[in-house]
């Protein structure tokens, strides 16, 4: 879930500028000027000085080009050289996040800090209760020795003046699987043996120091300059992200230069019917519960952190993969492009090798902005399939998968479902418990993002708008009233 902030703005501005330069054939001439133009000397710097701000932008551009920032060999390599390489595609090695070490502010290692509310009282409960003897009183104020403190938090609880504040490290705090940690220099490093690409660290860092490796330049160059023919596969969550009708959104996607636009909801219908079949067989064979498999972050979570749960995860492929199979049948020569809100889809695409590019909703918005495509002015109906049922588009919101399965089964089957809405430390504990002792439920739907794909890390609209927009677009596309569970 992203709350809009200036770091998000910077990321989008960089994307827009890169696309504009590529589109106007000035990429190599002007890419190294972007940091200078965006951070002119006259402005008051965000960090220590304008040069630091520019360096941060340079590395953020490297990430937008698809590079791993730690791979930098020579600090003097101009962005132009990176751009030339990026145009031909970069192997991500299956790692889609990179830490912009220049931007990482190396947030505190010790989470507790004494504020000036400290009264230097006689009782000194902070000092008395500290198990590590880390607190000394200097000039009438408590002081925490960072070498001794173990972050237990007792001092904070003990202080009646609320003078001790808890200062979180946002990326570490938001990571549900402890995959991000500081190195000796205090810079965050991601452990990809643990990372499930949920994107929570990326959206939580207010310095924008965790960046996703984008394919945007490679994609747009192939489309515009190499004349590759492409098919867009649009996730239903995309329809929830813009304040315009679905047919306008799909038409505007086509206007970027795609030969054809398909909705991933088409594949969702196949996922539903296969998963329903699998669930019935599962129950018949007495194999206890089944969980969904369409969220790639969840599938990765089971693989890396709850392997005992693997037999319960559905073997049905995701809507994206079914849609890709359909697209390949019709258009064997075309490159497939998935457009959606998801970071983990980049990993799923990398592992399954059926799709060429992943473009996030945020990148889609940046493409439109850069190319001056206004969806509200485009409504040549394209890609809207009358055969898609509302439940398939409902996959984008939490509860949508279960709802779709229940709708397929009809009222006569007595199937119980449970929703795990968002992967966090608590829900992982629950899943671990379920892997040891099966719950009394037939089907569990797991979504890494709370609220579902409509709150994915690559989205634009604030969470409050996503669900109402999705309901609206489903209603507008289907003759029947909307059917997703709120």
């Amino acid at each position, binding site marked *: 879930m992203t709350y809009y902030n200036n770091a998000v703005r910077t990321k989008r501005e960089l994307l827009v500028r890169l696309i504009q330069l590529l589109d106007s054939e000035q990429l190599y001439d002007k890419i190294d000027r972007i940091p200078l133009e965006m951070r002119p000397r006259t402005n008051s710097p965000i960090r220590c000085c304008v040069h630091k701000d520019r360096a941060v932008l340079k590395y953020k551009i490297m990430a937008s080009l698809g590079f791993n920032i730690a791979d930098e060999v020579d600090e003097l390599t101009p962005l132009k050289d990176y751009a030339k390489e990026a145009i031909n595609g970069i192997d991500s090695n299956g790692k889609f996040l990179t830490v912009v070490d220049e931007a990482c502010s190396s947030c505190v290692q010790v989470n507790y800090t004494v504020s000036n509310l400290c009264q230097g009282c006689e009782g000194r409960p902070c000092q008395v209760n500290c198990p590590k003897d880390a607190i000394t009183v200097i000039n009438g104020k408590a002081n925490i020795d960072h070498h001794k403190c173990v972050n237990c938090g007792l001092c904070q609880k003990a202080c009646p003046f609320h003078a001790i504040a808890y200062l979180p490290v946002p990326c570490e705090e938001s990571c549900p699987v402890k995959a991000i940690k500081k190195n000796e220099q205090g810079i965050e490093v991601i452990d990809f043996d643990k990372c499930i690409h949920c994107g929570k660290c990326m959206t939580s860092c207010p310095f924008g120091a965790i960046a996703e490796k984008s394919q945007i330049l490679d994609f747009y160059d192939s489309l515009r300059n190499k004349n590759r023919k492409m098919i867009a596969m649009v996730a239903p969550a995309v329809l929830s992200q813009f304040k315009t009708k679905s047919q306008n959104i799909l038409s505007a996607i086509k206007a970027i230069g795609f030969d054809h636009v398909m909705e991933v909801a088409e594949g969702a219908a196949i996922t539903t019917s296969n998963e329903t079949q699998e669930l019935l067989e599962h129950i018949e064979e007495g194999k206890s519960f089944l969980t969904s498999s369409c969220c790639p972050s969840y599938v990765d979570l089971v693989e890396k952190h709850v392997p005992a749960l693997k037999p319960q995860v559905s073997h049905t492929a995701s809507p994206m993969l079914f849609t890709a199979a359909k697209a390949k049948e019709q258009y064997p020569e075309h490159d497939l492009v998935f457009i959606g809100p998801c970071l983990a889809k980049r990993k799923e695409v990398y592992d399954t090798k059926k799709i060429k590019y992943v473009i996030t909703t945020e990148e889609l918005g940046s493409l439109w*902005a850069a190319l001056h495509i206004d969806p509200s002015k485009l409504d040549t109906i394209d890609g809207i399939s009358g055969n898609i049922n509302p439940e398939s588009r409902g996959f984008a919101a939490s509860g949508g998968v279960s709802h779709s399965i229940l709708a397929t089964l009809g009222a006569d089957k007595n199937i119980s479902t449970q929703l795990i809405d968002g992967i966090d430390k608590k829900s992982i504990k629950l899943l671990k418990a379920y892997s040891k002792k099966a719950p009394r439920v037939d089907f569990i739907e797991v979504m890494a993002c709370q609220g579902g794909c409509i709150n994915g890390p690559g989205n634009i609209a604030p969470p409050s708008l996503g669900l109402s927009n999705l309901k609206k677009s489903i209603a507008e596309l289907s003759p029947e009233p909307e059917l997703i569970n709120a």
Partner: protein
Amino acid sequence: MTKPINFKIQICCGTMCYIMGGASLHSLKETLPAEIKDSVSIEGIPCMGLCNQPDAEHQHPCVLINGEIIKNASNHKIVKQLLNHTEL
């Protein structure tokens, strides 16, 4: 009793404004204080073309209040502006 509309708010719905924070403006209605709520009309308008001008950075999203341009608009900024006008 219906109050007269004193403020006509037009939110730019161009994609540039939308991705640069304009998406949040679509919940403006819910953030309006009760005392001015009924005297405000809100509508979306197509891109005004401001994003094509030089020095356009840090000016999105754009909103018009009674025809006057508010740059770098946020719900908070709009409400503040409206309250300032009502006091006059």
